[in-house]
């Protein structure tokens, strides 16, 4: 029996995420340092963990409403209003999801299908393109450029629009580049979206991790609220990746449709995590602020070190990644990463894992202690001086 032939060709033809090889080598390697991780090194604040534990002690071990706990949705609504100045009805415009990832999936499955085109900004988080393809839709890539600080421009979007275009997926602050977009820069994007009657899926999972700059959601621009599905969550801001807690905010007509996908696929997000998330929103401003300041210091430390080592490095203003160019070394991203790993036991992620236009770059996370970053910088420095 040939099982492979039984697999849905769409799924069969999508390659697995391209970093497995590095992963296996690093896991085996003694004394290796990795800057390859895409999640906070901080442990979830104790008060949040304690709330999760307490919910278990109280016996909250059942399903919640498919939407998520009412109290949590109310807290999310207040938080989003206070932080980003957008109003969503907690009753039917917010869904508590299993991480931001589920939000991306249900938004796409709700909006697009066969024949539709979805504009995808790259370099970007690895799941957008496959998720579009799982829906039978066609991803149309918009390559953001280092010369333009990896920002999206209205012109680049407009060039790619066809009668089939339905949605733009964008993410700022961006993984892997650390790029952000200001309100002024988002405005022309919003105009193009409105002009061509498109929708936006805006993945804002890193919205709290900006440095010297406050995040603006594209949904907060005039007439954009109803055209935008905001994806956000607790993973990055509250260091809660393992809890798998995200949420979507969108107009009730779209939310109602997404709710069906969520309801039938997921039922509801983990109950323990939902109770913990309430505490995170209510009482963790200080912890979030502390982590933010710490990331900012590490950001400066790593950028400074990379530049000293001779790597051209654009200044990221959000998330927790540096995305230096390695073009001047003459190596491609994969070779650079492999050589760096073999010779200096330092793992970083090749930029092309985040889209073809990430070729010539590597992603280095600074969600690590200053000690680890310093040791990594020493290794890079040695490596670069030999090239």
């Amino acid at each position, binding site marked *: 029996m040939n099982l492979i032939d039984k697999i849905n060709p769409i799924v069969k033809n999508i390659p697995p995420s391209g970093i497995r090889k590095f992963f296996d080598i690093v896991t085996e390697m003694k004394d290796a340092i990795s800057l390859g*991780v895409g*999640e906070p090194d901080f442990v979830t604040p104790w008060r949040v963990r304690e709330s999760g534990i307490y919910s278990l002690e109280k016996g909250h071990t059942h399903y919640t409403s498919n939407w998520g706990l009412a109290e949590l949705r109310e807290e999310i609504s207040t938080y989003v209003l206070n932080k980003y100045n957008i109003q969503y009805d907690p009753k039917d415009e917010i869904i508590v999801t299993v991480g931001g990832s589920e939000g991306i999936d249900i938004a796409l499955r709700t909006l697009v299908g066969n024949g539709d085109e979805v504009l995808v900004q790259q370099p970007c988080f690895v799941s957008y393109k496959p998720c579009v393809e799982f829906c039978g839709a066609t991803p149309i890539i918009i390559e953001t450029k280092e010369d333009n600080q990896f920002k999206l421009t209205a012109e680049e979007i407009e060039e790619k629009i066809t009668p089939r275009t339905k949605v733009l997926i964008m993410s700022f602050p961006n993984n892997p580049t650390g790029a952000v977009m200001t309100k002024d820069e988002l405005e022309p994007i919003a105009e193009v979206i409105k002009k061509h009657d498109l929708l936006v899926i805006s993945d804002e999972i890193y919205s709290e991790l900006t440095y010297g700059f406050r995040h603006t959601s594209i949904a907060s621009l005039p007439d954009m609220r109803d055209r935008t599905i905001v994806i956000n969550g607790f993973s990055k801001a509250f260091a809660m990746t393992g809890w798998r807690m995200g949420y979507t905010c969108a107009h009730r007509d779209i939310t109602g449709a997404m709710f069906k996908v969520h309801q039938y696929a997921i039922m509801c997000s983990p109950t323990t995590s939902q109770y913990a998330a309430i505490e995170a929103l209510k009482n963790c401003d200080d912890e979030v602020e502390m982590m933010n300041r710490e990331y900012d210091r590490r950001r400066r*430390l790593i950028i400074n070190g990379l530049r000293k080592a001779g790597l051209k490095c654009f200044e990221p203003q959000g998330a927790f990644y540096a995305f230096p160019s390695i073009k001047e070394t003459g190596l491609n991203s994969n070779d650079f990463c492999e050589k760096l790993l073999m010779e200096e036991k330092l793992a970083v992620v090749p930029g092309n894992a985040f889209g073809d236009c990430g070729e010539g770059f590597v992603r280095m996370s600074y969600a690590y202690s200053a000690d680890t970053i310093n040791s990594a910088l020493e290794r890079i420095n040695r490596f670069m001086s030999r090239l």
Partner: protein
Amino acid sequence: MKDILEILERDSRTTHDEIAAMTGRNVEEVKSEIKKLEDENIIAGYTTVINWDKTEKETVNALIEVKVTPTRGLGFDKVASKIYNFPEVKALYLMSGSYDFTVLIEGKTLKEVAQFVAEKLAPLDSVMSTATHFVLKRYKDDGVILYEKQVDDREVISL
């Protein structure tokens, strides 16, 4: 200034170069800023958090509640200086509530601490009474948990 202090409070080994990079200043600026903070006694010292319990060294720690009579015109400060100048005193705080001073003492043996209280502290003119509590185990000191080390259990690479 606050950011330099925060960085050093977290890890006093952070070098001038690192602090300069982290705060976006130049090294000379950082050096002179730190010098100033030291001169003003805002940075009052640099220490290491040590879990002595895990070493061979035998130490005894005690917390002593002290009630005193304040000195006319000088309040508690004069008594305080008489207490904090003893090298055995690791920390001294003036408290609100039912007693006046908390004195943290470190000695080699129980006898040594007892002797200190009986012979040095209690006989001070202003001291009215003392109550000594011996420390049985230190779980956390100066914000550092002494018995569990957080390990990085993240996957080595994730996207």
